[in-house]
C-alpha cells in the first residue's frame, strides 16, 4: 500500500513569501512569523477573516499569475501550508521563477 496523497515539497522561500502576503492582507494583525508558526491552522481560526482572505487570494493570484477554481470541492486553500502545497502541486509555482 502506498499513500495516495501527492507528496509535495514546498520550498521554504514560498512559505515565507506567502506568510508575508498573508500578514499584509490582514493589515499586520498577525505577523509573518506568527502565520508561519501556525501554518497548519485554518485561516479563519487565526482571525484571518473573509476580507483578509479575499485580499490574500487577490495578492496570490496577481503575484504568481495563477487562478483558483473556487467552485471546486477545495476552493481557496484554508491555511498557509495548504495554500503553499496547492500552489506547488496544482499550479506548478516555484518561488524564484514566478514571484514578482
Amino acid at each position: 500500500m502506498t499513500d495516495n496523497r501527492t507528496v509535495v515539497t514546498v520550498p521554504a522561500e514560498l512559505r515565507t513569501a506567502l506568510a508575508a502576503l498573508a500578514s499584509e492582507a490582514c493589515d499586520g494583525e498577525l505577523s509573518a512569523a506568527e502565520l508561519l508558526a501556525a501554518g497548519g491552522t485554518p485561516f479563519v481560526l487565526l482571525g484571518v477573516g473573509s476580507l483578509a482572505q479575499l485580499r490574500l487570494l487577490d495578492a496570490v493570484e496577481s503575484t504568481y499569475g495563477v487562478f483558483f477554481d473556487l467552485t471546486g470541492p477545495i476552493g481557496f486553500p484554508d491555511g498557509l501550508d495548504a495554500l503553499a502545497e496547492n500552489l506547488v502541486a496544482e499550479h506548478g509555482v516555484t518561488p524564484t521563477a514566478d514571484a514578482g
Partner: protein
Amino acid sequence: MHRTRSGDPGNPLTGTSAGTVHGLLEARSQAQPDRVAIATDDGRSLTFADWHRRSTAVAHALAGRGIGPGDRVGLLFGLRDWPEYALCYCAVTRAGAVAVPVSGRQPAEAVRHLLDHCGAAGLITAPGVDRPEGTWWTGRLDELEAEAPAHPPELPPVTAADLAQVLYTSGTTGRPKGVAATHGNLTYGTRPTARHRPLAHSEQFLHSFAVGTNAGQTMLVNALDAHAGALVATHFTPGRFARLIEQRSVGSVFVVPAMAAELLHAKVHTRFDLSSVRLLGSTAAALPPKVATGLTGAFPNATVVNYYTSTEAAPAQTAMIFDPARPTALGRVAQGAVLVAGPDGRPVPAGTSGDVHLRSPGSQRSYYRDAEAGAQVFRTGWVRMGDIGFLDEDGYLHLVDRESDVIKSGAHKVSTLQVEAAALEHPAVAEVAVVGLPHPVLGMSVAAAVVPAADVPFDAAELRAFLAGRLAAHEIPSRIATLAELPRNEGGKPLKRALRDLLAAPA
C-alpha cells in the same frame, strides 16, 4: 436603484400579472425574448425567454407540490447560481407564493431558524448546497423542472398587493428579522413596456451581491427593468472584478463601500482599463468621502453615485452624485421622504442630529411575524434606520453615528446581541460583549471582549471554530480579547464605548 419615475398605471399586461415581479419578466420576454438577462463571469447565461418559460414550468411543478398563494418557499443559492436563483424566484411568485431568498453561505442552523420562523413549506437549493432538514420539502431546480406537467392547470392570479418576498436581516433585538415586501413595493418605479430603460448607456451592469441581500434583490429587479443585462462576479476579489470590467467593457458597476475600498486598496486602476465604466453605484452603507474621492480618480469616466436605503425602507432612498464640496453628505432624498426626529418623534431643525427615518413612496415593507419589533422600526409610515444623522440647510443627509447593538460591517448588518448569544453557548465563555471597531474598509469590524470561565481553558481559535458553525463568516469576531471583568454601568449594562477603547488598543 434607478427608480426615478412613479409606477406605470397603464401597464398593458394581462390581469394575472400586472404590477408583479414575474409580470415584468413576462413583458420583457415578449419584447426581447433572446436578450441575455443575467450572465455570470464563468460563462453561464439566461435569456428573458428561457427565464420566463422555465420559471413558468417550475411554477406549475410547485403547484403540483401543493404550493399556493401566500405559502413561503426558501431559496438557498450562492453567488455562482444567480441565473438559477432568479429563475426559481419568479417561479415561486408566479405560483402565488412568497420567496424567501437565503445566501448559500449562511450556516445551516441560521437557515433552519429563518425557515422555521417564516413557516416555509418548501426549500429550493442550488446543486451542491446542503439541504437543511425541517418541516419543509426540499428540491433542486432540475428536479422541479422534471416534475412540470405537460398539460398544466391555470396558475392563481397574483396582484401588486400580494407578498412577493421575505428577506432576513439583523435587527436591533438579536435574531434576524424577516422583512416582507409586496410585489407593488418591489416593482415601484419600473415600467414593463418602457421605450427608454434605465442604464441605457450600458450593455451590462456588474455586481457581486449575495442572494438574500436587499442589494441583491435590487439587482434582480434591475435585470428585469434595465436596458443593461446583469453580469454577476461569482467571487469578488479586486483583481477579478476589475479584469471583468476590462474584458467586457462594463458600463455600470454596483458595489458596497467595502468592495469600493478594496478596489482602491489593490490599485486595480493601475493594472486594468476601467474607462468603460459610466456609472459606479455604491449602496448598503455610507460611502466614506476618502473612498468616494478615490473612486472618481480610479474610474475616470464614471459618475459615482451614493445610495442610502435599507432592507426595511426600500424603495425609499437618498442618492447623490459624489460632490467634493459636500464630502460627508449621503445625498438628498431621491425616492420617498427623509426625516430626522428627536426623542419625541418630531422633526428637529436643520443641523441638529437625531434619528434618521425614511418613508417609502409606495407600499411599505413590514416585519414578518414580529409585530413587537416592527413597532420599533416602522412608525406610522416612517422607517427608523438605526442611524443618527442630520439634514443640512439644503436638505442633504449626513450620518454621525449608529446605534450600538447593530453594527455595519461591509455590506452586512451584524447584531452584536446575536454574536454574544452564540459565544455564550461556548463553555469557556463566562461573559462576553461584542462591539464594532472602526475599520478603514469594512466601516466596522467585529470584536469581542470575553471573560473566560474559571475552570475551562480559553482559546480564541477554538472559540472562532465554535462560532463558525453558528454564525456567518462576517459575524465572527476578528479580534478577541480576554478581560477579568467587563466594564459596566450602574445598571449592569456593558459600557460598549469603554469596551471599544479597550479593544481598539494594540494587543
